[in-house]
């Protein structure tokens, strides 16, 4: 039986509110189907399922806010038996909210990916009497920290939780989305600066050749298919990552975990404030035209609030650009559990000397924020040099 969990869609998410189910018990679902909508502090997200089978039981109702990892539904996978004797444990949680992104594999796409791993979560340890008391008091056991052997939740833990609850002051009005988003971003960035030993590098990249090529290329394209220069930057970063896999992945439980697929997270500012950084899946394998379409679609959906869970959970690195805001260089904060962030500033015209001649060139400042637990400045510098080289041959991107 597969468990459909409240996903962790980034380091800044600890809980989510179920807005609606798009399927009901008994419906057949296929891996990659969107089956629920969830509200997070940053956005409303379409949540995909990572198993194929039939929804056996719905455990969470719309309007309920539950911690990350909570089992929201049970899915009987194809070829496997029905629940039978298995206790559904309605509020079972997979684990305490992990400090890392649950790197759920993306839904089926053109490129094969690893199988789903939504199942296999440990059971919640709670004594029967404690469980009954929690149910009587209307307390979700998943929200209680166990102090018994093996972190088992005891009767005393439930009583203590009940006291804490009654001692709480009257509820404060719920913060609006912008305030919650700011709080979530702040928490993730504070954690990043606390835990990740950042190092920062910058280099100036000559964009003259790339921009000239782009102008010619766009003359051949219909208005809907035109490229923006940001797509060249994204593709160059993605291709360079193939040579520096240590910058593409996560640092989880004290260990660097490079990822074989390059899913560049693109920082997108939202109207009304805040930002999200969803993934452009398989950035390195998409042609420029395809990447542009994906990018446009992603920006539109990010701003319309229709991102998918895989897009928020999958980024293996983040690219941010503040050039259009007039910033010459951006030294970003790494988004945990990622291990690197690439920043781009604005394109400026600058005098450059070459072979005794000074000419005006259009240049951009590229930066790398790296995690010293995973890489060092030497490799980081080589990575930026690779990005620069790739941008000198735009027709090869």
């Amino acid at each position, binding site marked *: 039986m597969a468990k459909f969990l409240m996903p962790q869609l980034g380091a800044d998410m600890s809980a989510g509110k179920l807005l609606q189910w798009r399927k009901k018990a008994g419906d057949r679902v296929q891996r990659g189907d969107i089956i629920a909508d969830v509200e997070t502090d940053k956005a409303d997200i379409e949540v995909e399922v990572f198993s194929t089978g039939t929804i056996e039981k719905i455990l969470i109702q719309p309007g309920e806010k539950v911690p990350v990892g909570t089992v929201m539904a049970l899915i009987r996978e194809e070829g496997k038996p029905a629940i039978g004797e298995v206790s559904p444990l309605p509020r079972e949680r997979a684990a305490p909210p992990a400090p890392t992104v649950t790197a759920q594999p993306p839904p089926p796409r053109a490129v094969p990916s690893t199988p789903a791993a939504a199942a296999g979560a440990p059971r919640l340890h709670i004594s029967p009497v404690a469980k009954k008391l929690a149910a009587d008091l209307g307390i979700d056991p998943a929200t209680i920290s166990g102090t018994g052997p093996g972190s088992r939740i005891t009767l005393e833990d439930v009583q203590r939780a009940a006291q804490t609850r009654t001692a709480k002051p009257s509820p404060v009005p719920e913060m609006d989305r912008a305030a919650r988003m700011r709080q979530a971003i702040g928490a993730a960035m504070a954690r990043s600066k606390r835990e990740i030993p950042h190092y920062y590098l910058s280099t100036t990249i000559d964009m003259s050749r790339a921009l000239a090529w782009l*102008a010619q290329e*766009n*003359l051949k394209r219909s*208005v*809907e298919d*035109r490229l*923006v*220069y*940001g797509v060249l930057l994204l593709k160059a970063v993605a291709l360079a990552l193939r040579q520096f896999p240590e910058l593409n992945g996560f640092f989880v439980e004290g260990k660097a975990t490079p990822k074989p697929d390059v899913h560049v997270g693109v920082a997108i*500012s939202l*109207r*009304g404030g805040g930002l999200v950084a969803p993934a452009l899946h398989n950035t390195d394998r998409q042609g420029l035209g395809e990447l542009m379409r994906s*990018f*446009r679609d992603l*920006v*539109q959906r990010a701003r319309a609030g229709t991102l998918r869970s895989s897009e928020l959970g999958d980024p293996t690195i983040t690219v941010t650009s503040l050039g*259009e805001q007039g910033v010459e260089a951006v030294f970003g904060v790494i988004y945990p559990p990622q291990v690197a962030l690439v920043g781009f500033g604005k394109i400026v015209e600058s005098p450059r000397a070459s072979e005794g001649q000074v000419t005006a060139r259009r240049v951009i400042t590229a930066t790398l924020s790296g995690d010293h637990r995973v890489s060092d400045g030497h490799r980081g510098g080589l990575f930026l040099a690779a990005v620069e080289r790739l941008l000198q041959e735009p027709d090869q991107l």
Partner: protein
Amino acid sequence: MTRDEIRDGVFRALTQVAPEADPSRIKPNLRIRDQLDIDSMDLLNFVIGLHKEFKVDIPEADYPQLATLDGCIEYLAKAQDLR
């Protein structure tokens, strides 16, 4: 097509890109980009919107002429006359 009709079409394209914007508050002679906080992706979507609205091809080289509302109306009026 009258200038008012062109203005309405420009407003429709703009509100597709920036739904929160109140087009009536846009100062016609100031850069739209500065008033609505739009980026290059929005600009491209705006041009695509104008293309659909007015059935004109707008080359990249002409984008600077679309910087203000007055500029857009002027450009599109000329483009209509040329058709």
